């Protein structure tokens, strides 16, 4: 092979790998991107049915109810404007607390309950995932009526 041909071959190889990688990425993106919605958006019907997405907000104080099997829990996630009931079967992460921010991934049930497949334990030292902080700020900015349960946005108040 002449050097020029060889260079073409190498460039071709590189492009091939790049192409395959792109196809794989686009494919994977299409089916695996998870979008985030605030409770207000979910309640107003902006969230998709039959597709997994994430919600975030504050877990309303006093809303956590545990079923007899000890594993299924119900709680309400709120952005202070709208309230969204959530069901989850499994063990909640340590950092999950009433009155604190939480992010959950799952699907919307037909009755308007969010069926979580995963409750995420991620947050910073102030107990406030940025998604949740933003959801709260958005609800506040839209001037929506505050729901009755008052959550403590700075999350420093112990609730144990």
């Amino acid at each position, binding site marked *: 092979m002449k050097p020029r041909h060889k260079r073409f071959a190498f460039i071709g190889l590189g492009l091939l*790998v790049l192409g395959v990688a792109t196809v794989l990425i686009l494919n*994977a993106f299409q*089916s*695996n991107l998870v979008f*985030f919605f605030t409770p207000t958006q979910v309640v107003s019907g902006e969230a998709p049915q039959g597709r997994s997405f994430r919600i975030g907000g504050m877990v309303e104080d006093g809303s956590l109810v545990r079923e007899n099997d000890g*594993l299924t829990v119900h709680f309400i996630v709120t952005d202070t404007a709208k309230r969204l009931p959530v069901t989850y079967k499994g063990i909640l992460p340590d950092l999950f607390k009433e009155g604190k921010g939480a992010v959950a991934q799952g699907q919307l049930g037909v009755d308007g309950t969010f069926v979580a497949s995963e409750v995420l334990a991620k947050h910073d030292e102030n107990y406030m995932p940025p998604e949740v902080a933003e959801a709260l700020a958005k609800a506040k900015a839209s001037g929506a009526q505050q729901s009755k349960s008052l959550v403590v946005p700075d999350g420093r108040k112990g609730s144990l």
Partner: protein
Amino acid sequence: MIPEIGHFALILALCVALVQGILPIYGAAVGNSGLMAVAKPAARTQFLLVLTAFGCLAYAFADKDFSVLYVAATSNSQLPLHYRLAAIWGAHEGSLLLWTFILTLWMFAVTLFSGHLPETTRSRILGVMGLVSVGFLLFMLTVSNPFERLIPAAAEGRDLNPLLQDPGMVIHPPMLYMGYVGFSVAFAFAIAALLGGNLDAAWARWSRPWTTVAWCFLTVGIALGSGWAYYELGWGGWWFWDPVENASFMPWLAGTALVHSLAVTDKRGGFKVWTVLLAIMAFSLSLLGTFLVRSGVLTSVHAFATDPKRGLFILVFLAIVIGGSLALYAWRAPKVGLGGSFAMLSREGMLLANNVLLVAAMGSVLLGTLYPLFLDALDLGKISVGPPYFDSVFVPLMVPAIFLMGIGPLAQWKKASVPDLAKRLKWAFGVSLVSALTLPIVMGNWTPLLSLGLLLAIWIVTTSAVGLRERLTHVNGNSLVERLASVPRSYWGMLVAHCGIAVFIVGVTMVKGFETEKDVRMNVGETASIGDYTFRFDGTQDVVGPNYTAARGTFHVSRDGRETTVLYPEKRRYPVQNQIMTEAAIDPGLLRDLYVSLGEPIDDGAWSVRLYHKPFIDWIWGGCFIMALGGALAISDRRYRLAWRRQEPVVPVPTRAVRRKVA
């Protein structure tokens, strides 16, 4: 007083770093050996100054000096001493000090082991490292000072995040940073070579051991972090494709490519331009990792709520370092030349393919990590990219790379032939294929992925065996032991590291294929079964730790009626931050882990409980440690030791390199 000394030491270190970053590089450019001679003492002085600062912060932690803001924010008087010291890198400011300290440590190492380098090269390397150090010192002194005072002093500290109160915290970050920052040496070598315009085989030989050492540290650091997440988070997972994990994995992928590309540059003089680019890439990704993890753009246990000024500083710094080095690269690289020619099918060709695949994989991880951040920054909505994305992109890219990994070491340099390779590898291939197809059936669960994973693992081991056998026929020696001993250590290192990958793949494959998990409600005295094991819950007791109280459960585990072990998982409550922590109990084993973690108390002493049976999971980390061991073996090779012993910067090295190139 002590914190002020630390602060002052940092300011002095910045001055020294400026001198170190400017004078030697200028001296090298104009050929002034007086200016170049500044590099070595400056680097050592800087090391001592940063060491002083680090010592002062350590003292403030040991002394519980809550008049220092950082100490008050990340420790507590009840926190045991070893965690107080680990708390130095428990948050933003201190981890940057650790970063800088390790950077100066690497600099110090360069001054010790660079006797054989030409003076111009050494002064450029130290100069570049000095410039990097200027950035970090400036960052600490302007927006992120660990010695900032809190007046009036706090009566009590806010405590270290309980998640971080673990032996993993003591060792994982330093290891990881040794790896991250270690790539700065390879980076500085590359920039020095670009500045000097002499990228020969000798350059590759000098930077190889440094890169390998950094790579070993990074490998161990990532493995430790993964193991820590496994037992500390209580979720039984070992890798979550969390952005923070990706941040450490991307430099690893680039670094792995770099280690292999350097081998080609060293042995054949090829890939020069590519090697330099990889060196820049590896270090840039380390910086990006630091930025991602420490700037607060990501939510995780690693991120700390910080002010945006810091993020901006790191971003600008990142732009200067990456942009500057790429600009230099674009300007100087064409002069470097491409190196020797080779056929597509040759060891070089396969290493190149491997490199391209590794970099493509790195790119896909980078995209999945940064894409949500871009969308968010542009206000196009919030998304997250989950593990399925990474699994479905990463695995298909790695499979051919691992397949080539078996063939590459057996192919000849320059030009290999397919029939020859096929003849030498047919047994290895046959054995791998048959055992990969039958083993899962024997184990009772055949899936395509299980067979694929085993195929790759066995393929690596069998091809390594073939390679070793062929090697043994070429070396001198009468007995087998003699011949084994005369195989160079660098070759052993490669074999061991590759087999480490095989062990790792077995771990991943078996865990994915055979793990079982159960969330159950358990009353006192009740049993639950998982795999062949029966767990009996004997209730919980209250225990008191140094800075926490806990409910400790007792689980008797038995198999076929015989007791295997007793496990004591805990649910801890740390009163200072009022945080609950799950301490999982694990019975590790070569062939399986048993894992119990407590969920929540329900009523009458009943708990929700999570049980796992994880076959071969320890092989995952074992594989990583074996890889690092391989790297360590490679750098203990004779030729590096000889190079280091040679104190005088003399002519032989370059001439040898020239001869090699001619040959």
